[in-house]
């Protein structure tokens, strides 16, 4: 077996690392010349400036609209319910894998918006569950036939970023065993029987993002941005690659300098290269933008 080359700081200085954790990678069509459009993975970025009101409350109706627009665009359907029917069957047992991290959980408004559309498809309420840390003991998740993976985007002390790939860590009983080597084996969890092949849709909530970590729980309100967006796609690796790039751009915008990710989000690259879970090369990802794009950075 061919041993992978060590990526060092000097690769970053040379600009030869192309994945999301490369400081030189640019989400720009100008570097797309050698990558055929047909090879690209589509992800949808939707934003709405009214997603959060003056009092800091998330607007349920706007979030529903954002979700609908993004899913419809992703699946080339005008009607959002028709689009959801391409993802979920009425006979499915659906686990909505959320994230309850106290400081920046998946917004309830987003969970409700997803659940509403799953119900609209015809899945009975009794066959739908929203959970995070209890998934291993949750009968719906244990017998699920479809998963919707949804969580906020943030930096993470040990894995660089907390994104879609990492969100499935609660499907194992010993999460700390996946924290070694910058969490590089995280994507292996997606091959566990409870998860494998079931995740129909991935959603990175960018309604609020945490672009830098500090403090006892790696959370500091100063480094949370009201980005008011959602990033949606079928490929969790592509979403995380774009997400990592966005967090980097947010740090540059905030600090006025290119602060590298605290921990290299190596797991995104490994998810692509080793576990073949998806695409991490930004040049092979098409970001379709919908709605308000002021200060979108990408």
């Amino acid at each position, binding site marked *: 077996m061919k041993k992978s080359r*060590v*990526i*060092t*700081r*000097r690769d*970053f*200085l*040379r600009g030869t690392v192309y994945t999301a954790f490369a400081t030189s990678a640019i989400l720009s069509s100008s570097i797309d010349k050698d990558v055929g459009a047909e090879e690209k993975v589509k992800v949808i970025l939707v934003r709405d400036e009214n997603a959060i009101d003056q009092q800091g409350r998330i607007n349920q109706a706007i979030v529903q609209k954002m979700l609908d627009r993004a899913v419809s665009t992703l699946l080339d359907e005008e009607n959002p319910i028709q689009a959801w029917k391409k993802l979920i069957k009425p006979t499915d047992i659906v686990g909505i894998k959320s994230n309850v*991290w106290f400081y920046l959980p998946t917004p309830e408004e987003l969970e409700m918006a997803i659940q509403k559309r799953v119900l609209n498809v015809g899945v009975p309420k009794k066959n739908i569950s929203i959970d995070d840390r209890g998934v291993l003991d949750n009968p719906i998740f244990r017998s699920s036939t479809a998963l919707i993976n949804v969580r906020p985007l943030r930096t*993470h*002390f*040990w*894995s660089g970023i*907390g994104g879609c790939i990492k969100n499935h860590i609660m499907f194992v009983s010993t*999460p*700390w065993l996946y*924290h070694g*080597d*910058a969490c590089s084996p995280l994507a292996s969890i997606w091959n566990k029987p409870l998860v494998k092949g079931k995740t129909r849709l991935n959603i990175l909530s960018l309604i609020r993002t945490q672009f830098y970590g*500090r*403090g*006892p*729980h*790696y959370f*500091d*309100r*100063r480094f949370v941005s009201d980005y008011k967006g959602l990033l949606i796609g079928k490929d969790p690796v592509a979403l995380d690659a774009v997400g990592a790039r966005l967090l980097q751009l947010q740090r540059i915008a905030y600090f006025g300098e290119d602060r*590298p990710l*605290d*921990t*290299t989000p*190596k797991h995104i690259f490994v998810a692509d290269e080793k576990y073949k879970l998806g695409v991490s090369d930004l040049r092979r990802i098409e970001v379709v933008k919908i709605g308000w794009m002021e200060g979108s950075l990408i």
Partner: protein
Amino acid sequence: MRTLLFYFFVLVAVMGIDGLSVFSMERSDRKTEMKKLLPVEIEAYKSDGKDQFYDRNTTFRYMDGAAELYRSYGFKLLMVRRYVKPNHPSIIVELFDMGLSEDAFGVFSFETEGEDPQVGQGSDYGGGLLRFWKGKYFVNVYAEQETSSTKQDVLEIGKGIAKSIKTEGQKPKLLNYLPKEDLIERGIRYFHLHQSLNYHYFVAHENILHLGARTNSVFAHYLSSQTKGKTFLLLIEYPNQQLATKAFQSFVKAFMPEASSSGSIRMENGRWAVAQSHQKYVIVVLDAPFHEKAEELIHATRKNLEGRGS
């Protein structure tokens, strides 16, 4: 033979039970000791009486993946106490028994970006959070919400706790070997694992310096008024010379393959990286503006290691 085996198993079982009881006694002693350090009442705040304790395995339940930071040091036990006062946001105190004062300093040194309010043996305040260390303890104090009085309350509570920790601790010995000229004291970082090194300064995605629980590392910033940009010094102590030599060779091979035995290269940003192994240590200078500056730092560190430093 059967009788012998029987006695052997009995012995193992007794030792096992004994081991467990020793462990649980040690844990119970730690709890008692930690409870004594946190006053029940402080600055008109009272404990809510619901103290929580977490060890190396259970601390994930409390702080998710951030627990890895503490586990990367010799963290033993965490006590969490909430202080309440009518019409004021609650104040949370997290008291970590780090086992050794060196590791209490290490976890503190991980981030020193705020102001130093002079609490304990070293402190940092920023974004509503006070972090300090004293003896073998590392402490976080923060309010659930920030108000105009929060900062003062947090600092007063922190000072009260620091006062009740009677025994001071030593900083890691490795710090003594750092050249003092142009050294930024608050920029010193002490750690064990390569993930921590990458947090401070990304070197490589693989552990090319063979860092681990048995290695001690110090990463220091140097800033001279005469040159632009920071220069970094990494000093690593291995359990023995053989391991240091192997790590040095691995580093040169991956990071500066063109350097061969010189251990010196000009990086792609025009700055210099120089590495040397010396006894059971590896010394690496990164981002030096000139080759001479890098050599100077290496030379001064070697002198200190040999006990010849000024």
